[in-house]
């Protein structure tokens, strides 16, 4: 079973790495790299991506002529996907366990952030 683990954060919310003291940023980066390594080593990681800053994000819709109409600069309260992991595990319970580990990523002073991780099972499409 494949699951997508999504880390959503507010543009101006707690996950504002840049405002943290240097050693806390370093500890956070080290935690994330270690988490990635462990998931790779256990053979459960399918894919993981970190997304660029919300300041680069654009909302796109097609106009009446079918051409893209872009919208940018969002209110700080808007939630953004910061990154995701796709894992292949035997059960939902295991997916939750992994999500809980990610949730413990350290913040300021090394205190766990208890980040909300959205866990979604990936739908199975017929093979072509």
């Amino acid at each position, binding site marked *: 079973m494949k699951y997508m683990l999504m880390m959503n954060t507010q543009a101006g919310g707690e996950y504002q*790495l*840049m405002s*943290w*003291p*240097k050693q806390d*940023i*370093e500890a956070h*980066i*080290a935690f994330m*790299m270690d988490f*990635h390594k462990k998931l790779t080593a256990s053979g459960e990681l399918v894919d993981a991506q*970190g997304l*660029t*800053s919300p*300041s*680069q994000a654009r909302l796109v819709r097609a106009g009446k002529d079918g051409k893209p109409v872009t919208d940018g600069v969002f209110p700080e309260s808007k939630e953004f996907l910061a990154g995701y992991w796709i894992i292949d595990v035997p059960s939902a319970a295991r997916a939750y366990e992994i999500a809980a580990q990610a949730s413990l990523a350290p913040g300021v002073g090394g205190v766990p952030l208890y980040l909300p991780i959205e866990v979604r099972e990936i739908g199975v499409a017929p093979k072509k």
Partner: protein
Amino acid sequence: MSGKLDTSTEHLLRELAPQVLGAVMRRYRNLSSCEDAVQEALIAGSTQWPEEGVPHNPRGWLLQVALRRMTDIVRSEIARRNREAVAMEDSSLVVAPTMYSEPEIDPDDTLVLLFMCCHPSLSAPAAIALTLRAVGGLTTSEIAKAFLVPEATMAQRISRAKQSVKTSDVAFQMPEASERAERLGSVLHVLYLIFNEGYATSSGAELQRTDLSSEAIRLTRLLVKLVPGDGETIGLLALMLLTDARRAARSGPNGELIPLDEQDRGLWDREMIAEGAALVAAAFSRGAVGEYQLLAAIAALHDEAPRVEDTDWPQIQALYGVLMRMSDNPMTVMNHAIAAAMVDGPTKGLELLAPLEQDERLRGNHRLDAVRAHLLERTGERDAAVKLYQSAASKTSSIPEKNYLMLKAARLRDGK
């Protein structure tokens, strides 16, 4: 190639790949099916040679297998066309194969192949993929892995690139003398893109993709032999060697980025530097100096400085000045300003960067912010520098670079 293949056999197969493809192409012309046939021959070689030993004439062996495969392809194509009742006279595929003589190998075949794969009508990703497969002899799965895309995606990209070569009627022949320089320029550009993709991948967690850089160097070495004495080709090879020489020093144990001025120069590859510097000198002695030669000369000046403070910045500034007169590139203006700041101080550098803030081509690019942050840090304008480092961090799509810039901002801010 298969995993159990030893390196020397793999190198041999990869080296022979374009030669064999060239010979098959001269007979059958159709890039798409010829390339498929050669790829099958390479796979046959990679599975049979480790068990049965490398044949006495490996090139002839591959060629025979590829030609046999081509005959099958042509036969089934003829059968298909007969079924469809198409007049056979029109068939471009039907060329009588002479199976029993050893077809001659012309070194120019590889060059013609390069010109074909790097044809300006192809998009950059298409040209890169096609070059790596047809000239580099890499399998689709290896190329897909290097670019971190699914194999099916890469297979489709290669097959569309072949289709595009076919529809734009790119002939398997040497370009006319009048367009040769321009076509060679396209080849150099594609090789440089392959190198950069490997060296400083702009996205993803890994800073360096070793294999693509080495492959670009291997192909450029090959090109230097095919167009002996071409200054820009030699310049490009030198540039790659002088840049790749710093590979081991360029990132830390956890993949974190280490900038040039903080690198442990003891880790630089002295042999590569010596070879690159000698190539730069040789290229310059030929007169007419192009952009790759200038960039290589600048890289050599960095590499030959035993310590960062020994860097010959006035010379680097002068070379970027020449580059600025040759082409209108905002990145060159930025690098020139960095060199000027080293010679005349950060205020001078900031002054030279000012016009770039209006440059549309740099919109959303993180580098200008990063450079200005660095210079403002040196003039002591800490708050402005922190803001710009953070702004640069939020713009880059390279994760190691983002981490580096974020930490730079934090260190400066915490240092208050």
